[in-house]
């Protein structure tokens, strides 16, 4: 019986060359031969790898741009099914990456989950800021762009309210908006949104310690915070996974076309980093990470102080158990600060991005989340 491992299995040269009984040249030779065959197979997959890399797209669902305030755009997704709910949905993503991760692939699209559930779906794309946007504040984005986007949606649809879904930093911004304009928000879903920065478990909180990180000096020097700075910071949170394990996994599965499609869609997105307005960055780092003011009711936005107690609509907080970027303990304290009596929490075994693109999330949490919103939405009136 041959001791050569199957080519689909990881190769263990030590086991073949130095078994407990001593060195076996024949077994070692067979093992190396098998590994060389495996390597040839991987080389043969290179054309498919290149093809998959070239084919990777940004977003899966067609949309129309309904409003532009350069660089910000409001887009409306075109679903195939009938609309069954009167209140439209507005997605608000973070400002540090592009929002199409919420619509990455046809089978991994949170946008499609809501379209298929019968909602009218919009998304605000913050765009790529230019140096002229460096001095834009959180107020400019929340009270300006976001508020005008909501007004535009209300005008387009004839609805009196929107369902707001915010992801990560976009979730924090959505909570801020809801606290200032509760009358315009019917339901609020927050996906891995940082609310309470008191826990020191997060690496980011250690890195932004005012003793070591002078956010004023950084913002005053750079204006726009460079995308490489943000991208590398996020990657360094999991250096072994991002710089070693990912590529080893890629090598092992590079002859699997389905894997390649998912891999490159994710790679395109994760490398599509954008700069962020220095003033927004200053506010988030100083008043959020360093001073934890949101839960104290003193986070300033445009001269007002955010009071989460003003949020009285139904709230659904989604967290990812293995989230290393926004720990669940940074999101769940929201329950203690909102004024809502209808508050729900759901959690999934996934990472920060897995919450939107993970197979488990799409199977377990999104059907429940869309049902949660459907239960709290009014049906479309039929004539």
């Amino acid at each position, binding site marked *: 019986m041959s001791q050569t491992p199957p080519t689909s*299995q990881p190769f*263990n040269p030590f086991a073949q060359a130095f078994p*407990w009984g001593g060195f076996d040249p024949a077994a070692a030779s067979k093992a190396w031969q098998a590994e060389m065959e495996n390597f040839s197979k991987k080389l043969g997959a290179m054309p498919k790898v290149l093809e998959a890399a070239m084919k990777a797209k940004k977003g899966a669902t067609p949309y129309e741009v309904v409003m532009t305030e350069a660089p910000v755009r409001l887009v409306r997704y075109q679903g195939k099914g009938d609309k069954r709910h009167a209140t439209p949905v507005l997605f608000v993503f973070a400002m540090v990456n592009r929002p199409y991760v919420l619509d990455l692939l046809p089978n991994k699209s949170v946008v499609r989950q809501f379209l298929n559930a019968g909602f009218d779906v919009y998304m605000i794309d913050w765009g790529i800021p230019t*140096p002229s946007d460096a001095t834009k504040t959180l107020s400019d984005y929340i009270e300006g762009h976001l508020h005008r986007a909501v007004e535009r949606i209300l005008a387009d649809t004839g609805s009196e309210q929107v369902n707001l879904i915010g992801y990560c930093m976009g979730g924090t911004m959505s909570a801020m908006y809801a606290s200032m304009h509760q009358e315009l928000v019917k339901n609020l879903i927050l996906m891995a949104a940082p609310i309470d920065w008191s826990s020191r478990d997060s690496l980011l909180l250690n890195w932004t310690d005012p003793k070591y990180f002078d956010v004023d000096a950084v913002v005053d020097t750079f*204006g726009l915070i460079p995308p490489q700075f943000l991208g590398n910071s996020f990657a360094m949170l999991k250096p*072994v*996974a991002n710089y070693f394990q990912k590529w080893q996994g890629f090598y092992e599965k590079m002859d699997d076309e389905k894997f390649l499609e998912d891999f490159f869609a994710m790679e395109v997105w994760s490398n599509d980093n954008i700069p962020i307005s220095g*003033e927004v960055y200053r506010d988030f780092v100083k008043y959020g990470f360093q001073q934890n003011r949101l839960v104290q009711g003193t986070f300033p936005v445009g001269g007002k102080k955010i009071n989460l107690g003003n949020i009285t609509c139904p709230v659904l907080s989604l967290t990812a158990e293995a989230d290393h970027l926004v720990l669940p303990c940074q999101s769940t304290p929201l329950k203690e600060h909102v004024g809502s009596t209808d508050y729900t929490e759901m959690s999934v075994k996934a990472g920060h991005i897995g919450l939107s693109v993970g197979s488990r999330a799409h199977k377990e949490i999104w059907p429940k989340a869309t049902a949660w919103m459907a239960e709290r939405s009014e049906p479309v009136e039929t004539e």
Partner: protein
Amino acid sequence: MSDQTTPPVDPITGFWRDVWARSAAAGANTPGIPGMPMDPSAAAQAFMSPEAMKRMQAAFYDAMAQYAEQYMRTPQFLESMKKSMDQAMQLRQQMDGFLKSNMASAFESATGGSHAEILGAIRQSTAQLQSQIAKIDARVSDLESAVTGKPKTAKPAPAPAKKSAKR
């Protein structure tokens, strides 16, 4: 109190010893206690399987990730991060200074800094104008209310925009 049986090792040696010990333990499919005696034949069988390599790799990466995370929380790492950041800012300031003083005047062109200053001034002026208009609106509303006896309709004046300089 120092351990008399185990001599102290330097951090680097301790790190590698622990990482390899964990990998070997995972490869042999043991509960992961380095140095514990095990049945040689069972260990050999476990170590021979391709799955063992997978477990060893996973254990190796887990150990590396754990050490990396621990290190990235230390004052030494945070100090080095601060120094790198200070150097990056210094370089940027020098480049900006060079471009402002030499390149812009040589080519009689505006710099990114000039754009930012102009746009900042426009933004500030816009905010001031909006604030003034809102105040006038409120006064008109007061007058209308006084004349017609109807309740006021004007919105309160927005808060003045904050400056983008250091706070």
